[in-house]
């Protein structure tokens, strides 16, 4: 059977020497546990894995950057071949995978045996190498499984998703690489390793992009409720309505065993470790991978549960909210008490803590003052106000202190900006499961006081309980937030 002609991209992974025996190995490998792996069939792969471990990332970068595009086209060219897939080939693939799994099982067993024999202390290095090997093998198995499954997908050939789901390009890369030169096993191995990393990274990247997108809509929302950006015709989307309790719940992730709530899924997973060993496996700890959407997901929009609100689906001119985040912020801003008061001016109140944070950055820096006492951050707003009300005039700064206060304001402003940028960096990096988050496995306050992050306006790590996604919001809030604040003034 000629694999190349079948058009199946993946049928083989790390076997470098015997492509003919790869489908059905005649002899089970590594029957003798004493023979180190480096001398067996895995030798090259092992070696190359070692080098790959060092270079995988660097090697991967050019691979993705330069090769991905032509490879992708190549992949497109053979799409029609993928379309008429052969069940027999699939079966071959599956059996190969089974074989592979058995091999890994053998390796692991051998490791157990050796440990029982007490060779552990002598061959610690070898053992570590074997562990790495197992990990690498498992990774390749997983990738093969995914790509095999990928050949079945009708939507795969489209790969219409703009953000390149991890499965698509990866499969194509593997396939084309394999097709081009199956003898270059070392490079292949390297590539796989790189891709497995890339898969994670890409995943993260996508998540990050999504988060940014969410922020974008959020900022639009802040700017004007009426301007959502997309004018979807009614009926073209699915309207969801969360209940008030759901919206206001501080936690969104709950432990199924003890019922404890968490703001982040990652924190929940860390918590789950305490409930038993089965939750300690890498699979259980790994991030739930995103499934490749088979078909374009139905567009979801959200409705505010408050009756009579324009954002409620019963309203005549219903304008839906884009994301859950929008719902939460909208509900808090519009239908909840403003419980957070600015400690500087003791005047402004907010219901969303991020708004307070934003305000506090600017509070006291308003230099445009009306005779009625209202302050403005912008001159044109003040003049608009003065034009509107009879008898109001712009107030002049105090006679002598003017220069001093301006200077101190500038200094303060610079400090604030610096802090803001620090917060921004931290916020973006710790967006995912970060070390800090793991430490702060739940929302009890005071966890970070030794690290004293509170002093630098550090977005997600403040003392107040809040949903996980607000981390990124506050870290991004410098730009949209400033507008928000102005609007708040304009209303008063």
């Amino acid at each position, binding site marked *: 059977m000629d694999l190349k002609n079948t058009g199946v991209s993946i049928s083989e992974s790390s076997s470098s020497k015997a492509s003919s025996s790869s489908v059905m190995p005649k002899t089970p490998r590594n029957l003798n546990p004493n023979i180190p792996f480096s001398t067996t069939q895995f030798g090259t792969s092992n070696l190359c894995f070692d080098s790959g471990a060092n270079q995988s990332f660097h090697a991967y970068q050019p691979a993705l950057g330069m090769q991905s595009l032509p490879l992708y086209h190549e992949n497109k060219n053979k799409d029609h071949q993928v379309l008429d897939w052969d069940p027999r080939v699939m079966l071959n693939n599956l059996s190969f995978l089974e074989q592979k799994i058995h091999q890994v099982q053998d390796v692991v067993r051998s490791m157990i045996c050796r440990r029982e024999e007490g060779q552990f202390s002598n061959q610690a290095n070898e053992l570590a190498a074997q562990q790495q090997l197992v990990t690498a093998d498992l990774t390749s198995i997983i990738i093969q499984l995914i790509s095999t499954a990928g050949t079945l997908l009708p939507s795969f050939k489209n790969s219409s998703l703009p953000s390149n789901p991890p499965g698509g390009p990866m499969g194509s890369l593997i396939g084309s690489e394999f097709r081009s030169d199956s003898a270059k096993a070392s490079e292949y191995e390297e590539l796989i390793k790189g891709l497995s990393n890339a898969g994670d990274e890409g995943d993260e990247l996508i998540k990050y992009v999504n988060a940014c997108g969410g922020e974008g809509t959020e900022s639009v929302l802040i700017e004007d409720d009426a301007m959502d950006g997309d004018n979807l015709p009614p009926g073209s989307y699915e309207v969801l309505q969360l209940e008030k309790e759901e919206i206001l719940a501080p936690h969104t992730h709950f432990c199924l065993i003890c019922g404890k709530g968490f703001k982040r899924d990652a924190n929940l997973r860390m918590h789950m470790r305490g409930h038993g060993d089965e939750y300690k496996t890498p699979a259980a700890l790994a991030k739930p991978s995103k499934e490749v959407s088979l078909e374009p997901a139905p567009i979801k929009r959200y409705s505010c549960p408050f009756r009579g609100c324009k954002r409620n689906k019963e309203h005549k001119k219903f304008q839906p909210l884009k994301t859950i985040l929008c719902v939460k912020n909208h509900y808090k801003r519009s239908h909840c008490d403003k419980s957070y008061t600015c400690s500087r001016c003791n005047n402004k109140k907010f219901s969303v803590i991020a708004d307070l944070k934003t305000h506090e950055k600017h509070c006291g820096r308003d230099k445009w003052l009306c005779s009625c006492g209202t302050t403005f951050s912008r001159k044109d707003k003040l*003049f608009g106000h*003065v034009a509107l009300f009879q008898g109001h005039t*712009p107030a*002049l700064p105090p006679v002598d202190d003017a220069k001093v206060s301006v200077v101190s304001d500038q200094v303060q402003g610079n400090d604030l900006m610096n802090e803001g940028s620090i917060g921004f960096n931290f916020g973006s990096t710790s967006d995912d499961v970060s070390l800090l988050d793991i430490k702060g496995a739940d929302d009890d306050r005071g966890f970070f006081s030794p690290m004293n992050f509170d002093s630098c306006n550090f977005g997600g790590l403040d003392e107040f309980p809040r949903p996980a996604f607000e981390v990124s919001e506050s870290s991004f809030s410098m730009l949209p937030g400033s507008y928000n604040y102005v609007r708040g003034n304009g209303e008063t």
Partner: protein
Amino acid sequence: MRSDHAAITVLPVDLLIHIIDLVPEPSDRKSIRLVSRAFHRAECLQRRDLKVLRREALSILIRCYGAIERLDLSACAGLDDGWLAAALGGGAAPELRKVNLSRASGVRWRGLAAMVRGCPRLEAVDLSHCVGVGDLEVAALAELAGLKELRLDKCLGVSDVGLAKVAVGCPGMERLGIKWCLEISDLGIKLLVKKCRDLKALDISYLMVTNKSLHSISTLGRLEVLKMVGCYYISDDGLHYLNNGNNHNTLLSVDVSRCHNVSSAGLASVVTGHKTLRKLKASDCFIELPSDFLSKFGVLTNGFHTLKVDGSEVSVPRLKTIGANCKGLIKIGLGKCKGVTDEGISELVSNCAGLKTVDLTCCHDVTDDSLIAIADSCKNLESLLLESCSLITEEGLEYIGTSCPNLQEVDLTDCDIDDAELKSLSRCSELRVLKLGLCPDISDGGIDYIGSKCEKLQELDLYRCTGIGDDGLASLVYGCKKIRKLNLCYCTGITDQGMKYVSCLQELEDLELRGLTQLTSLGIAAIAIGCPRLVELDMKRCTSVGDIGFQALARYSLNLRQINISYCNISEMVLIRLLWNLRCLQDVKLVHLTQVRREGFMLALRTCLDKLKKLKLPSNLRNVISPALIQILQDRGCRIRWVDKPIPFFMRDSPPSSPDP
């Protein structure tokens, strides 16, 4: 005789007031005032205008003249918050309507606030050229709810906030000048227009405002005068706004000079939109005037009387179009216009017989033919400006002299004229202003014609007329007793004898004597004693004048406000005495006084700390004079200019002692 005197003194006060009402001349009024106590009291009650020159007299004068309505403090030396508050803060002049504080650079918001408290009925305030004035001062004025007229030209500190204060505080504002208030932007103008709907005159010259401001201004329903000289950000779009606005029937005068982004198309829309337009000034705006734009003037009513298009290209057909469409023109300004020829001028004036002012400055191609055409058509000509029209001769001026008996102002600077032309011109017996600068061919004989005929002459410019000597001045002074302003700079033939003649001019206020190296202390002493009204004196490079002359100035010329003694041989002690004694002194130029040491300068400046408004010093003193002194001067509103010029060679070797004979 004695009984007559008694009869007048027993006249009741109301009749006396009525009599005094009919006496316009200040000197006559002074005579009346000195007749008796009753006359003095009547004069005090009758007087409505007051101009104060010294701050020490201010309080007393205000108490004395309680009925004044207009007060001019623009020439009051050393006026500051304390003096102003003491004079006006107590309500001594409750009827005061108008205050002129132009160039009163020492006045700040405290003084203005006191003035506003004391004179709540003020309607007009002039703060122009008080460069230190800012929002605080304007805010103090904004308490005057009845303020109708405010000039803030070159009040550099005034921003939108100050303007907003005025706009809100004085809703009845009618005339506002904010020329050169560079901080003011569209926002301020917008608010002003929104709050002050009665604005009639608005001057936004040299502001950084854009078309948005014109959009706002176009909504003013009563606007009559709009000046926007040098508004670089205003373009045709803005003028179109003006055309579509609410002031179609009110706008009388528009000045768009030096608006470089305005084209004739935009201005044409203004002209067609405002048929009542009377004045249009568009100097240095466009390079050429399209004839279709000029033909738009035809839609204007006959009231259109002033057109100024300096710096444009005006060919013969253009001038013809102007003449055909603007028959009612009274003033036309064609200064520095290219293409102005005799033919064009004759086409223009043949239609515009009513012209009174013709400005042909630097129209080099103009010859006698133009003058003949003007003389033929414009019998009512009052002002003729011909600077640098060097082709004109006695023939043309002969026609002007015979045909235009009302001519009051003639500018012949740099026209290469000689005595014959002056003879022709001397027929204009109504002449008030005559400028003959840079005409070295004029001799004493030519001046004699003027002196014998033009009795009403008030202003004579003989800058660099080197042919003139003492005899010419003798005949001039003999005939023209009313001269107030005389420029004799670099007429190097003039000696002390000439100064003795000039000292007979009782009315003389402004005398320029630059570079008259033959003058000595005797001549200056004669001027100091003979011309008590002297306000300005320029003695730059009068190197032969010594200490005695300056001592005489210090002793007698107590009204001097400006003095330039740069490059003069004045000694330290006399300089100190001069600056100390001249109590009205406000503007001093002290460049390169080689005999004065640093300590002398410091002492001299200390003596006049509180009265100076402008000071010119050589830059080598900058690091020598104590910074504290400079700071005090500047805090009191004095502007110091540092001049960086080398000391001329002839002064380096001059002996340190006084060169007086």
